[in-house]
């Protein structure tokens, strides 16, 4: 991958999840949801497909933080709902459920994504990483440690999303510039207004990560 491509990924609206990209993925998700049999066909099928009732559940295997979870889902369930309410992974927070705030940011194959705009079915076959997945046992990961040291939060509710967004950024940009950090977390709202400490935390996290 050329450096330019990486730039493109991290800078267009929070590390990869662009609005256009979302609309594209929603199209795929909606199409997947209409399939009566197997979910998430690699190619969207024609409109003639049989419509699956909302409440009909289907089997799904999700790979989250390195573990496989098998569960029954309604095709309309979001990844956010499944993580929080079905699997008890409450580190991923709910802020708007419409792709505006980033409190639900998770990594899907290393790319930050809004879990509220990702159908659980869309995540099948992908490697999902949540805040909990950044821990090393009971030990904080480097980004979490950076946030702790710099007091990069107040109420702490947007914090998991901010941390995951920074993690996603550092995975493609281990030496981010201040401007890249700003862009990297620009899809994550913080109403307490901790942004300036978040920037410092991201710099500190980059330093801690390099030492690992």
């Amino acid at each position, binding site marked *: 991958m050329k450096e330019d491509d990486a730039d493109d990924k991290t800078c267009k609206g929070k590390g990869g999840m662009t609005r256009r990209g979302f609309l594209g993925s929603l199209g795929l998700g909606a199409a997947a949801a209409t399939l009566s049999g197997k979910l998430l066909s690699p190619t969207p099928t024609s409109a003639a497909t049989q419509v699956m009732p*909302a*409440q009909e559940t289907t089997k799904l295997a999700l790979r989250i933080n390195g573990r496989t979870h098998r569960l029954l889902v*309604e095709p*309309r*369930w979001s990844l956010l*709902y499944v993580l*929080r*309410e079905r699997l*008890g*992974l*409450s*580190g991923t*927070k*709910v*802020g*708007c*459920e*419409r792709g*505006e*705030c980033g*409190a639900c940011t998770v990594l899907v194959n290393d790319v930050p994504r809004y879990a509220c705009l990702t159908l659980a079915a869309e995540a099948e076959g992908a490697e999902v990483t*949540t*805040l*909990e997945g950044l*821990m090393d046992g009971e030990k*904080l990961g480097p980004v*979490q*440690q950076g*946030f*702790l*040291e710099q*007091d990069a*939060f*107040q*109420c*702490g*509710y*947007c*914090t*998991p999303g901010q*941390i995951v967004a920074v993690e996603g950024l550092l995975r493609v940009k281990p030496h981010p510039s201040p401007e890249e950090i*700003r*862009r990297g*977390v*620009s899809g*994550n*709202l*913080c*109403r*307490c*207004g*901790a*942004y*300036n*400490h*978040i*920037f410092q935390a991201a710099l500190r996290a980059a330093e801690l990560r390099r030492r690992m």
Partner: protein
Amino acid sequence: MEKSREGTYYAQGSPVPETPSSGAGSAPWKKTRVVGTARPRVDAYERVSGAALYPSDIVLPDMLYGAILRCPHPHALVKRVDAEEALRMPGVRAVVTGSSPEAKLAWPYSQEVSTLLFDPHCRFEGEAVGAVAAETPYQAWDAVRAIRVEYEVLPFVVDERRSMEASAPRVHESGNRVKRESYERGNVERGFAEADVVLEQAYRSECELHTPMELHGCVARWDGDRLTIWESTQGVYRVQERVASVLGMPLAKVRVIGHYMGGAFGSKLQAGKYTVIAALLARKAGRPVKLFLTREETYLAAGNRPPSNMRLKAGVKNDGTLTAFDFSCTGTGGAYPAGGVALVDWLVRDLYTCPNVRTECTDVYINAGPARPFRAPGHPQGSWALEQMLDALAEAIGMDPVDLRLKNIPTQSQARAGNPRYTTTGLRQCLEEGARAFGWKEARRQSAASRTRGHLVRGVGMAGGLWFAGGGGPPSTVIIRLFADGSVNLNMGASDIGTGTKTVMAMVAAEELGVEPEMIEIENADTGTTQYATASGGSKTVPTEAPTVRAAAVDAKGQLLAMAAEDLRLDSRDLLFEGGTVVSARDPSKRIKVTEVSALKKRGVIVGVGYRGPNPENRVVNPFAAQFCEVEVNTRTGEVKLIRFLGAHDSGRVMNRLTYESQVIGGITMGIGFAMTEVRVLDRSQTGKLVSRSWHDYKLPTALDAPGEVVSLPIEIDDVEANSAGAKGLGEPVTIPTGAAIANAVYDATGIRVTETPIDPMRLSRLLAGKRKEG
């Protein structure tokens, strides 16, 4: 006057028990070991690891999900509700509407006005009409959409500027005026006659929404006749009181837990209808119910900062002496009495020395969701007018804006009866030291020079401020338990709303007990297990709870020293408790480890109790502030870039330098939203409905809007008169002067006075174009 006003904010309607006096007050700390240092939060690990369970994270066995059906019209009568189909839908376990017997409850919108919980008369878009509990939130919303409601749609008024017109539809049968408050001192006409310069200007600030990151709501569970609620709240005891009173239950049967909460800014000081509705659904279904609003619902029905339409006339002499202020304001708290003009005039009345002041504030009804207190109610609005006016006066008399403010610094509260003295007034230091640290004079010269070059022009601006409250006060009770191994459990009812309350309290206890903060575990914000506290709001949590924690620690320590004195056969007054050991002050060789104290070993634990003592009589405890900023305006696009900000704050003793700085950064960021991005838009002519229904349309400052640099400059004055911790409030003063400072900087850069919020590219490019036309 000030009593009743204070009552309207963080303690209204709450039965406030007196606490016993705190006994002998502790002398101010001379040298501190822990207090005043910069420390990461005691609960930082929980918050960054995901271990912290916020109320919205709670998942209980067998739990259902609730959803509320809301009126889609700004003004309507509910004629008929048909929930038959909804009841038969998959997963639906309970439905409540206005015709459900258990829902026939009175809901107190204010002390004077109550309606039914599901009132047929819906006076704002988003009023609750019914609710559903189902196995999943998806099924609950399916069922809400299946409830058929017949409405008689009524005419509406959603613009407070038109609410008093004769043709305006009535929100309440009694008319649209809530109240008119006036205040006067001296003789304003004489004051204007004495002035060398008199200016008059209209200002407007838009309605803002709180939008904390965690949604409003709760989880409710019944065990027989006992109700437990996990609520995202600033004050568990206030939620308990409201729920118990609406449901007619004994306080002891309602337990409210709110260990963590994801932001509020004043919008979660009280239980919501959603709290009671969750409890009703849970009782009806016989299962726990989680009910959190959607983001859009919070925009409609979970509070706002009222819009303010202000006019200010001011007189000044050529030497900078202020001679008169004449101020008026019209505002609205929405469809019910909710402080639509609360404290908007306070800064005009009290911030600067001025003998002749008149204010008149008119609060009106409109068909929109009720306001809730929003971080420093009234103050950012009043500051928007007053501080821009001061800037204009300074220019008119050829004086530096900082010098004009320095000329008019009060040492007593002019607007309160008897003109009581402030315990401390750090306003002068905030202005002087802030200007020095910012490089004010040099920055003014440089920005003036930048204006001759191209389309990117620089400007600097500043504003002063004070917060009307911020001294805290009784009641509060704290219990400290000292275990036989020297570790400590601190038990308090106060919520940590993100300001670092728990950390500061651990530091206070550690300071007093001579142990490390890591040895202290905190239980808080649970009416079932922690002590009484008022809600965390009004910038009063640190000045209320810190002295109380200190008193509890002093009590526990006293008991320990008495026990150790028996073992050491010494007078307990000769003993100190340091680093887990009791030592004789006179002979340090005489010492005993806390783990060896025989009476403590026998008893297992020492229980120390602290009460918040009264505030000093005839004194006012207020925090003061000055903020400075530099902007760069693109005169082609109207974009404003915030280059740097400096906040100089006198909030008494600095308790934790790190969280203090976080508060300053956060307050300034929120002030940027007030000044530059945030507008609640109601469709005032066609539908009366909310237009800005999401964070896409209601814009918060993002990481890209944060200033290039924010500097916190604490003006540390140990306020020994205020309380035994020497601290005043910080959370609200940090957001008060921000908006006006930005407006003044934009004026400095462009020569354009932006008197209406928000200063966004659309407005500013229009104003810039107008100015070019004028030439």
